[in-house]
Structures are given as C-alpha cells and as structure tokens.
C-alpha cells in the first residue's frame, strides 16, 4: 500500500513529490516579520514559568519561594519518563509559586513559578556533552530530557521520548515547513542558525541511525532553503527538500504524506510507518543542550500583525509575559477596535484572554492583527452543504456532516464520521461560505465526548464499587445471622445436654460482675491522670458536636424564620451552654467533663429535634 524506501528515494531525487488532498492557500504575510534578524529583548521584570509545559506527567518542584535561582537552573525534577523539567530562564529570586493565567485558550490558571529577575542573568553551571559520540545513547537521551526539551512545533511532546525509539527509523524528517500564515520564526532560525540546526540533526542521527534525513522547507522560503542546503551539503544522506506551499503542509501527518505517500494509521504514530519528525527549533535546542549544555530557556517568537508598529522575530525567554513583548514591538492600540492577541498563527492559534500570559516552549508567534486585517468572523449562517469544507480538508473528512452531528450533540454519529481524526487545522472553516466556526464545534464535541467517556468510566467504577459494597453488606449480615443462629443452637444444645449449665452461666455472670466492679474502682481512683487525655479528647468531641448542632440549628432557623420561635431559642441556649463548659473544661475535673458530655448530647438531640421539627414546619 505504501511506497517503499527506494521509491521514496527515487521520487525525492527527481523532486517529484506526492500531495495531500485538500488544503488551502491563505496569503502568507510572512514579509511583515521575516526581513530583519532575530532581535534580543530586554529582560522583563518578572518571569512567569508554568510548571507544566508539555504533554505528560507533572513533575515535582525543587525550589521554594525565596530561593535564588540562576539562568538555566532546573526548577522541577521527576523520575517519571513522561516528565521534562523546567528551568529558570534568567537569574533572580523566586517570589511566588501560585496559579497564574496559562498559555491556553481557556485562560484558566496553572501552577507557575514567578521569578523576580535581578538583571544579572547569572548562569548556572553547564554540562555539555561536546563529544557526544563517546557517550552512551541513554546518556544523550537523558541530557535531552534534562534540558527540558519538548516539541516546539505544536503539542509539546517530550522530545527524549520520541528519540528513544526501538523501532527502525527509515526517514528522519526535519520540519521547517512553517505553513501557517504570518509566522516566520523557523524561517529566520534556519537563515541565521542553519549550522546549529545541522548539529542538532547530527545528534539525532547519532541516536536514531535513520536511513535518510529529509529536511523539508516550503518553497516560499528560498533563503532558508539555501542556507539549510549549504549547512547540510557534506552530509551524504541529508537532503533538503522544497515542498509546494499549501496549508497545512507542515502538519506532521500531511508532511509525511507529501514526502513518502505513507499515512500514519489513525491512533498510530509516525514511527509505525518508519518516520520520525522533529521541528527545526527542536533541533536547534538539542544542539544547544548537547554541545553547549544549555537547557531550553529561550525561543524564537514571531511578533507580527499590523497592530504592531515593529513586527519582527525576537529571542524571548520562556516565561516572558506577552505584555512585555507587545511593548517591545510597539503595539498600537489605535489599530484595533476590539483588541485581539493570538498566540500562534491565524489558523490554529488561540486568542489570549490576558496579556499576562507567559511565553512557553510551544509559543512560536504572537499575532496582533489590525482592524480588517483578519476578518472578524460574523455570525454563522446555515450550512448550504456546498462541501467547500470537504474539498479543503487535508484528512478527507466530511466537515459538514461532523458539524451537523456535533451541533445536534449526536456525538456517536459524529464519531462515526471520524471526528477524532480531525487535526483542527481550520482549513474547513477558512473556506466555509456560511462562516461557520466548524472547528469550534468539533472542539466542543471532542471535549464533551472525552468528558463523557471519563464519566462513563467513573460510573462503571462506581457501579462496581456499589455492587461490591452491597455484596459485602449482605455477606456480613448473613455471617452475623449465621453466628447468632449457631450461638443460639449451641446454647440450646448445652442447656439440653448439660443440667449444670444454668449454674455455670450463673457462675460466669458473677465472675464477670466482679471483674467489672474491680475495674470500675480502678478507674475511679488510681488511673485518673492517665485518662485525662482521653477525656479531654472526648470533651473536645462533645464540644465540636455541640458546635455543629448549633450551626445546624442556626441554619435551620435561618431558613424558617417565620415558624415557631420557641424551638430555635431553646436550642441556642442549650447549644451554647455546653460550649462554654467545654471551653472551661481544661481546669475542671473528670466529673464535670462527664456532665459536659451529657449536656452536649442533650444539646445535640434537641438541636436535631428542633431541626426536624422545623423542616417539618417548613414542609407544611
């Protein structure tokens, strides 16, 4: 079904590639930002570094508020292979560890380390593995993990996990496609740091031993194509390939299809078809980590859109708040009637609900379009079933059907139309003449389906627990009955068979009484000090109960102010007395404690009665 290695190589040699279905050609607007070199930004006052920036498991904080940290110092650690650490991007004092608005469409908060920078940018010690070929592969993978590298193109999948594959890799694909309009971060990176990217690729090649390395760049970036070709020219099995400009050619699955005609199975991974893909930014970060020992603390971010006076690419520290970058690029509020900042590109990025959102490892672009630059999508109209969406879909879905069923909340049918294969590229909504926010509907449907699945699982678990509990209770009851029955039988047996039984019982009873009396005496006289603690506790409990009862009564009273006044008043009095007593308890004798207990019990009972009465009144 799929093209084998030789055929792919042949096609690559003749530059005659495959294609993926659908796709759209939005205007690129790349020249807004890609004409000047990547600039440096002044240090912000504070950095906000979210604790979790990758897909996978949380890791554990190893710094506390008040600690001084240096640039590159790890802030978290974890023993789980699914976690990557985060690092301080510059030196300063940890002033807070709390919830801060996250780089996510929801605008919800996530645990974030806030560092007040001292402006010195003091560096933490570095551990380069300069001669990396001499090290064990596992050491290199570990170093990549410790440098905090997770995929920088999209979802943020931990890079070291991908690099630890046991399956044979035919094609190592380096993704420099950058198909989203406006974004030019990878473009500039390739133009200015092709050599370092190449070093990163070398590290990966050493780890993975692929048969062939393909560096794919869209043909609207001729300069990047050239620099990458020059950087890779000595390497025999590296090939820089120019691919036709079409959105979303940079999608992992689409790029694999264009280069090899292979399709990653639904629910599968690229490695299942012999491919592995890394973003050029990730390669750059790997070179940084291995050759210089620097963890991932900064990345290229495109600041663009016509509401910025100085659109450009910058090196932004991870954790820099967006507001700082907007100031740097001279955001001009007059350009926007409705302010709008998009993190990511116009097709797949998300709007920010606050400019305090920090730059994270996956942030490649901040887009601030002027009025009329990107259309303010109007209200949707009815779908006219024109199928423009289906023609644009790179995954060959039927967006209009998925939309229909998602909107009607017929999620099962939506799933039958392979809703979960949708890559949310937005091509369908981009062409829809009825301006239906199709992807939004898919997202709602997907999250609701996932939620329902979780709930179903939970319900299933609850059902099982409920049933086992019922079984247990039943068994216990049966066991108890059985025991009673046996005991009764035994007694009868004994009575029948043994005439002495009565005497014996009488004797046993007497013995028991005597013992009890002795114990009582003991307790009353000698053991008092030892018992105080217990009694203290009991008193406390009594007090707590009394408190609670009072509260309950008060609450009940609140709800039923128009009912009889007597009951609540009396409860209040009764409930307060024991409390006072309980407070004075410490100095009083055990006798008093007992009294308090009784009082509390009375109070409790009364309160309950009052409450019951009032609810009854209430009901009437």
């Amino acid at each position, binding site marked *: 079904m799929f093209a084998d290695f030789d055929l792919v190589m042949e096609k690559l040699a003749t530059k005659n590639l495959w294609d993926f279905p659908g796709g759209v050609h939005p205007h690129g607007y790349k020249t807004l930002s890609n004409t000047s070199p990547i600039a440096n930004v002044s240090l912000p006052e504070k950095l906000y570094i979210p604790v979790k920036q990758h897909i996978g498991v949380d890791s554990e904080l190893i710094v506390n508020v008040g600690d001084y940290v240096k640039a590159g110092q790890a802030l978290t650690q974890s023993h789980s292979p699914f976690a990557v650490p985060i690092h301080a991007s510059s030196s300063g004092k940890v002033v807070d560890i709390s919830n801060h608005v996250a780089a996510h469409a*929801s605008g*919800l908060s996530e645990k974030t380390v806030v560092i007040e920078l001292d402006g010195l940018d003091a560096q933490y010690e570095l551990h380069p593995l300069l001669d990396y070929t001499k090290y064990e592969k596992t050491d290199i993978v570990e170093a990549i993990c410790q440098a905090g590298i997770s995929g920088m193109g999209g979802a943020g999948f931990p890079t070291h996990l991908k690099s630890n594959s046991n399956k044979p890799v035919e094609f190592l694909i380096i993704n420099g496609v950058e198909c989203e309009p406006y974004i030019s971060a990878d473009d500039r990176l390739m133009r200015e740091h092709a050599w370092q990217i190449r070093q990163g690729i070398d590290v990966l090649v050493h780890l993975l031993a692929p048969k062939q390395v393909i560096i794919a760049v869209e043909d609207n970036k001729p300069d990047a194509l050239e620099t990458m070709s020059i950087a890779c020219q000595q390497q025999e099995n590296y090939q820089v390939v120019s691919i036709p400009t079409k959105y979303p050619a940079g999608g992992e699955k689409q790029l694999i299809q264009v280069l090899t005609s292979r399709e990653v199975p639904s629910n599968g991974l690229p490695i299942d078809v012999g491919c592995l893909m890394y973003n050029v930014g990730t390669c750059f970060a790997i070179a940084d980590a291995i050759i210089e020992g620097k963890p991932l603390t900064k990345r290229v971010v495109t600041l663009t859109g016509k509401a910025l006076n100085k659109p450009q690419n910058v090196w932004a520290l991870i954790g820099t708040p967006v507001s700082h970058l907007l100031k740097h690029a001279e955001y001009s509020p007059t350009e926007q009637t409705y302010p709008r900042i998009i993190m990511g590109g116009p097709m797949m990025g998300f709007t920010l609900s606050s400019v305090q959102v920090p730059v994270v490892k996956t942030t490649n672009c901040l887009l601030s379009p002027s009025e009329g630059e990107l259309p303010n999508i109007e209200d949707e109209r009815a779908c006219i079933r024109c199928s423009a969406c289906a023609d644009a879909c790179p995954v060959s879905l039927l967006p209009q059907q998925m939309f229909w069923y998602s909107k009607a909340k017929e999620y099962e049918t939506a799933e039958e139309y392979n809703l979960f294969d949708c890559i949310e590229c937005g091509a369908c909504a981009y062409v829809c003449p009825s301006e239906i926010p199709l992807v939004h509907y898919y*997202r709602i449907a997907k999250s609701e389906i996932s939620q329902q699945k979780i709930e179903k699982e939970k319900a299933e678990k*609850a059902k099982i627990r409920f049933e086992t509990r019922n079984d247990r209770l039943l068994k216990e009851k049966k066991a108890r009955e059985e025991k009673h029955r046996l005991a009764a039988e035994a007694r009868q047996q004994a009575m029948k068979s043994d005439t002495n039984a009565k005497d014996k019982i009488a004797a046993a009873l007497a013995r028991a009484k005597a013992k009890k009396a002795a114990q009582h005496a003991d307790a009353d006289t000698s053991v008092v000090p030892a018992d105080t603690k217990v009694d203290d506790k009991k008193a406390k*409990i009594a007090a707590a109960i009394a408190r609670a009862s009072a509260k309950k009564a008060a609450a009940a009273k609140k709800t039923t102010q128009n009912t009889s006044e007597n009951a609540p008043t009396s409860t209040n009095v009764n409930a307060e007395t024991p409390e006072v007593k309980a407070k004075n308890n410490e100095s009083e004798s055990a006798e008093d404690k007992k009294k308090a207990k009784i009082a509390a019990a009375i109070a409790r009972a009364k309160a309950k009665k009052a409450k019951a009465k009032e609810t009854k009144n209430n009901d009437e």
Partner: protein
Amino acid sequence: MTFTLLAILAFAILALCFGALLGYAAIKFKVQSDPLVDQIDQILPQTQCGQCGYPGCRPYAEAIANGDEINKCPPGGDATIKELADLMGVDAKPLDAAHGIEDVKKVAYIREDECIGCTKCIQACPVDAILGAAKHMHTVIIDECTGCDLCVDPCPVDCIDMVPLASSSQTWQWNFENMTVGDIPVKQV
C-alpha cells in the same frame, strides 16, 4: 391527467425505495444489545444518590424498565433523559424538579481537623469512597466519590462539604462565554 397520476405514483415508489434502502442499512448495521435493564443502567450516571427515590441506580433502572418515568435523575440531567428517551422510544421530558435539579459536578470534602472519626459517613457512602478508621480523621477519595451527597447529613459535626470540581485546561469545554477576560494596558507610544 393520467400522466400526472403516473408521475406522482412513480415518484412515490421511488421515494419508498430509497427510504426502504436507508431503513435496511439502519437495521443491518444495528448492533445486538444487552437486556434492557443493563442498557438503562449503562446510561444512568451511577451516582447512587437515591434522589430518584430508589436505593441506587440499578433499582431505578429496573423501575424504568417496568414503566417508571425517565426524568427522575438529577445528576444525569437532560443528557441522560435524552439518552433514555432514545433507548425507550419515548419523548424526552424536562427533569422532574420534585427530585432535585441538575447541578454542577461536586465531590465531598472532609475538613479533616474537625472530623471526630465517628465512621458515620463511611456507613452512608454507597461506593466506599471514604477512607478512615474509628476515631481517626477520615478522607474522601476524590476519584471514587460520585458526589451523591449522602455522607453530608449523617456527619454529626458537619465537617463534610460538597465542593465543585475545579475545571482545568484539560477538561475545559471551549466555553468562551463565562471567561474572565482582561484588556491590554499599554500606554500610548
């Protein structure tokens, strides 16, 4: 005139054929299913709260199978009613308010320093979601708690609260409406 009739007849027959084909497809791809009670039980949220008036979800499922109303389950809410209606082939109706109203998902939380360790809540919890031994503080296993509310009343010191489950960015439902949104405090340059 006869032609018109013929035309109408032809159309009718064609429409019937297409309809029959679609219907056939629907039947052909239908999956064999469990007994009715199991199916109903599958749909119910398994909160085991008893708000429906039955001691747990399964008894209510049995009751529905025997003809009880389908709108008595507040935790399941409209979604559950809709599914039940589909399954039973009856019209969905609004939730019967006599049994309670649909609420946000909550879980029980025990204020541990106030707990006196009386084990009353353990006895009340239908899914054994509370851990603790006599005279020791108790705690709720959040993942197991169904939010049924049954442990709140028995507690003599009133230290159990029902708290709404916090929403995280993972469980966010793409609801832009009630989001807190800021502005851009940029000075004019």
